[in-house]
């Protein structure tokens, strides 16, 4: 059931995008999220869309797989598009069906917002699909390092994040197992009236919480007996390396920002 979900999933590979340093990927994606809001006309939005498609192509992740995995997001997208079409009443009327009028501005806004949304979702998905969770947290830890001066426990935060990410698949497996065990006992999550379905969540959540707490305790004990004492003086096994690809990536970001600033209205 959750096999098709691609949020937070990592597909190993050795494409250009895979080989980028997590730091440059993170910087790129965060900057990209901001830069997207610069676009405000057809040319700039087309540029964003084309660039995103290029990145997907370069990551060698099948577009079909990506779209299939992001189905829930796409439903949301269609919904926002429709809202815009229905409720924006500016500009000329393009066509009308009885009460229902489509305005030029509504269509424009709808399309633009949809592209913005799509581009953001695709880009962030590409980030998590091409970067292992461990490298993402390594990257974040290094990028946040300056905040140590403000007494922010950067190492601990990064550790928390990597533990959380590490246990997502484990918890998913666990959920699947418990769900099956309860289904075998006649509990049904996917049929019946809403009230019954909500009730059927309890037999799922209680065992899940019990095992998650137990697991957390075991992990804490295991870390303690191996002498874990936080980030102080800790060396790294995985070294991050900045190479020409990352410089290229940053250059592309700069060029794109300039183009967007230049061509926006």
């Amino acid at each position, binding site marked *: 059931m959750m*096999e*098709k979900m691609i949020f937070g999933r990592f*597909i190993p590979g050795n494409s250009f995008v895979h080989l980028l340093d997590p730091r440059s990927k993170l910087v790129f994606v965060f900057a990209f999220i901001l830069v997207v809001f610069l676009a405000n006309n057809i040319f700039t939005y087309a540029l964003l869309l084309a660039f995103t498609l290029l990145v997907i192509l370069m990551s060698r992740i*099948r577009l079909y*797989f990506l779209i*299939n*995995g992001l189905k829930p997001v796409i439903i949301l997208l269609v919904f926002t598009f429709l809202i815009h079409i229905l409720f924006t009443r500016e500009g000329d009327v393009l066509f009308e069906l009885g009460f229902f009028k489509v305005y030029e501005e509504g269509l424009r806004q709808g399309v633009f917002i949809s592209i913005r949304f799509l581009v953001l979702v695709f880009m962030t998905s590409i980030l998590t699909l091409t970067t292992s969770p461990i490298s993402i947290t390594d990257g974040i830890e290094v990028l946040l390092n300056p905040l140590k001066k403000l007494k922010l426990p950067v190492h601990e935060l990064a550790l928390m994040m990597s533990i959380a990410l590490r246990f997502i698949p484990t918890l998913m497996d*666990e959920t699947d*197992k*418990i769900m*099956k*065990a*309860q*289904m*075998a*006992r*006649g*509990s*049904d999550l996917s049929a019946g009236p809403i009230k019954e379905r909500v009730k059927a969540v*309890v*037999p799922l959540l*209680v*065992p899940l919480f*019990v*095992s998650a707490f137990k697991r957390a305790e075991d992990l804490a004990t295991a870390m303690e007996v191996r002498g874990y004492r936080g980030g102080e003086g800790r060396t790294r096994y995985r070294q991050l390396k900045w190479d020409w690809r990352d410089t290229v990536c940053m250059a592309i970001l700069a060029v794109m920002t300039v183009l967007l600033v230049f061509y926006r209205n």
Partner: protein
Amino acid sequence: MDIKLQQVSYAYSMGTPFEKYALYDVDVTIPHGTYQAIIGHTGSGKSTILQHFNGLLKPSKGQVHIGDRVIVAGKKAKELKPIRQKVGIVFQFPEHQLFEETVLKDIMFGPMNFGVSQQEAEARARELIKLVGLPEDTLNKSPFDLSGGQMRRVAIAGVLAMDPEVIVLDEPTAGLDPRGQKEIMDMFYALHKERGLTTILVTHSMEDAARYADNIAIMHEGRSVLNGAPREIFSDAETLEKYRLELPHIVRFQRKIEKLMNQSLPKICLTEEELAAEVALALGEGRDAK
């Protein structure tokens, strides 16, 4: 209720880059009332196959017959609930499925889902708690206050309370102490004999398969490669070796004795008692042994 798998293949994550076949063209028939063991090395597809027995997984190819219901690959299967009542599954580490405030409520959860009345469900719980070897006052305790072994027994009672015709056991004794293992296995065997429960035991313990099963199917890398009576299966050590399985201790012990006695016994013995009797017979003390 017969269970029949015909040319069943199953792939996890169909249609994604993670697609992976776990079963290939499996044919298994389990007639009503038999004790069937399914053995295989880790990753042989044992756990995948057992989820087909009550429609938790639908075959990617082929079909599964459960009694008169047929689940065909690619077709929507509706109303699986009646099947799930008739085929009870005790999963690996079933104690993880406990969730209610009291043991009593947890045992009643299954039967109540299948529309059994409150009184009836409670009566079943009172009967079953004794059957699984726990005192009756356990019923009012929280399942989370029990020991691991006791929780296991409560979970088993919870599955038996559904009053299934077929019971599927996935490594039911994993992690229990030897005495607990024997008690649980003997209890399932007694239920199999007394109530005529069709029993499917998925295990990698050759000893349990030898002692209890009428029939043994061997899985290897997603295929069912051998199927037959225990004596047949365990007469061929070389084939077993090929599938990375060993003979049961008792059969290996028999081979050693045969070497010492310099003669082979007429049949392969599946339990200690059987071997003792055979050896006694061979040594010419047959009358006393019997």
